[in-house]
């Protein structure tokens, strides 16, 4: 599964647990408009850490907070690449 697919499937799972409906998950979707609030995004980041083995938010004190889903995925892809992982085969 690609990193993007892992992120999208986790988002769907969290939304489903909370019985929230999601808009189409496009790259330019503003994360906080996706139906996930900051608590849900914190859960998303924690679960991705369990799945992927890393949390890019804690890797540096120079973090640019992602605004869109595309930013968020790129943030993870960048962190994966810097670890020598292939973002197309994250899991």
């Amino acid at each position, binding site marked *: 599964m690609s990193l993007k697919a892992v992120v999208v499937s986790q988002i769907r799972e969290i939304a489903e*647990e909370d019985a929230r409906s999601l808009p189409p998950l496009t790259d330019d979707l*503003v*994360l*906080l408009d996706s139906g996930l609030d*900051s*608590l849900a*995004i*914190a*859960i998303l*980041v*924690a*679960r991705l850490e*369990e799945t992927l083995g890393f*949390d890019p*938010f*804690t890797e*540096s*004190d*120079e*973090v*640019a*907070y*992602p*605004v869109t889903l595309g930013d968020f995925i790129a943030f993870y892809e960048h962190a994966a690449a810097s670890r020598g992982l292939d973002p197309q085969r994250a899991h």
Partner: protein
Amino acid sequence: MSTLPHHVDSIRSALTDAADAGRRFLRTAAADVCLRDLVEATSLGGRAAEFAGRSVLVATRTQLAAALALVELDGLARRIVVCTPDLTPDHRAEIFAKAEVDEVVSEQDVRPLEPRTPSAGPRVETEWILLTSGTTGVPKMIVHTLASLTPVRSPEDGEVVWGTFYDIRRYGGLQILLRTLLGRGSFVMSDTGEATGAYLLRLGAAGATHVSGTPSHWRRVLMTPESRAIAPRYIRLSGEIADQGILNALHTAYPRAAVSHAFASTEAGLGFEVDDGLEGFPAHLVGGSGDVQLRVRDGSLRIRSSRNAAGRLADTSPLVDDEGFVDTGDAVERRGDRYYFLGRLSGTINVGGLKIHPEEVEATINRHPAVRMSMVRSKKSRITGALVTADVVLKREAGSGAHDDALTDLHREILALCREHLAPHKIPGILRFVSALDIAGAGKLARRA
């Protein structure tokens, strides 16, 4: 060191003395209230006299109605109990009894301002009761006076327009309301349920100069496209540990702003502000003398100041130690010439400024018939500061040899139970089944990671 403001008898007397009150305002999306009108008009209609000398619970839906009621009741009521917006009916009944509440001000009691006849009755020093979360879920009632709640006077020059992501019925938000009413400037309040982006646009339109919130509030701002709508001169963080990541991100996003993080709590009051842009606080603040004195004992930060609460209502355990210091329960560690916050000694979890007692979440999980025991802990998060996680040990008959499908069902059932009984921030974001839990020396769960 900042100077303390001169003594004020009541909010209204401070506003009466303020020459510029006619140009200052409280604003929401729907209303604009001139501070001069708060002196000359009433929002409680003819009922104001009924509250004289009484214990009054303020339980409005909106922040503005609460603010108007607080202005009216301060100096008039014997006691004001400020209800937080998330107070449940069960807890409300308990608070009602313990605070000997005589009267309630709810949303419909607060009406459009109309001219008032100044009351001739004596002004009293009103006792303010603020609510903060308690171990069993029942809020603790923290006793303050207007004097102990009065913020340090800001040394600011020029026009000041405040904004805060806090609700004014919590300590952090009440500080901003009182800074405005007793100090200077105007205040743009958020509306109940208002999206962060919409509030930022209103703050930008009003030219907000000073904006406060928890680190988690600010992380949410930076994840919002409308973050560019504001250009404050001063950014204040409090209510949670401010890590270097959020301080740096705010410096980058708002290069013109002074970014300051403050330590304050409902019980200890305002402690100190740190404005060097670094996480933690300088070690020289500890052990000094002055208005606010800090000590570290048993790894915990203690504070003694005129901003300390006077006590807890209906609770005989002392608020201060034998030297008059409030134990904040915040664990600190010295590294070099700085102290750093480690989290809560009690294991209390702080999710975006809201406190969670692990025992309450464990008790809920343990209600499930398949659960033998559970341990709830904090996991660090760069989004909400912390997150609730749960390790769950199943009873032998439920756990051993169970199929994955059965475990998935149990997982879902336990979370559903939590959702039914707990506020969203208390529900474990990660729930794992484990075979055993760590037990510390005293037979207690080894909660601290």
